[in-house]
């Protein structure tokens, strides 16, 4: 059963990821990204990370992809582009070498250290994992005790990001108003 879930979720993740980099229409790429994000959410569930799976669906698949689609529609770039031309000579073979190299190096490191990580995992805290909200309790206890300062800083970060974006996206009309 666990194997079936893993294979299906892995297929979703990989098909979606390949769709993001191969579809010529940005709207199709964004919808492929949704497929990948849902696959990752399924894997979070199978790792007992229920809260993160919910946040993944709501924030990533909900908010971020909708923001992408909104910007695509706003800018009017929702048409296919010609991705068969290669702007820089030999860019794609080199990029393929680098991409395969990154994956290969990480996989080699994993294989060489597999004895440390190959346990199939018995949940985060096996004594409390039976309770329905055990994951949220543990996560909240860690965030609001050990990491409370980082949590407060993220609220500052969000405020700064929102104000910065509003200032950046606003059309400057002060100069005409001053004349």
């Amino acid at each position, binding site marked *: 059963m666990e194997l079936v879930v893993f294979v299906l979720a892995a297929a979703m993740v*990989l098909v979606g990821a390949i769709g993001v980099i191969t579809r010529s229409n940005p709207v199709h790429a964004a919808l492929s990204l949704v497929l990948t994000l849902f696959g990752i959410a399924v894997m979070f569930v199978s790792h007992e990370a229920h809260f993160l799976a919910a946040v993944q669906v709501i924030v990533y698949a909900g908010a971020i992809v909708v923001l*992408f689609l909104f910007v695509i529609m706003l800018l009017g770039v929702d048409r296919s582009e010609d991705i068969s031309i290669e702007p820089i000579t030999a860019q794609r073979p080199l990029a393929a070498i680098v*991409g395969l190299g990154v994956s290969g190096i990480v996989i080699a490191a994993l294989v060489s250290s597999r004895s440390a990580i190959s346990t199939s995992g018995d949940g985060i805290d096996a004594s409390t994992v039976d309770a329905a909200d055990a994951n949220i309790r543990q996560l909240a206890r860690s965030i609001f005790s050990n*990491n409370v300062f980082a949590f407060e800083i993220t609220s500052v970060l969000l405020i700064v990001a929102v104000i910065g974006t509003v200032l950046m996206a606003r059309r400057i009309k002060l100069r005409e108003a001053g004349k």
Partner: protein
Amino acid sequence: MLSTIAPTNTWYLVLAAVLFGIGTLGVMVRRNPLVMFMCIELMLNAVNLTFVTLATAMSDINGQVVVFFVMVVAAAEVVVGLGIIVSIMRRRTAATADDLSALKG
């Protein structure tokens, strides 16, 4: 027979490594800034999957806490990045990263 095989943590980590490689490839190959941004999201998700898998392997909830913060920062990053892309695209309609060479030496 098949039901006796359970996926180990290494499978998840290998999948995350492959996903990260695909994201890297996309950032280097695609020329549309929006699609390059989506590929960055792919790489962020690969790292998140690694964190959650190792949180399970090490029985340490702090791996999931890091993923929580990565998601918050990713949301802020997308907002700022899309704002920059919108303000660039207002001035020029061509939607490729190659045309944005004003800072080229």
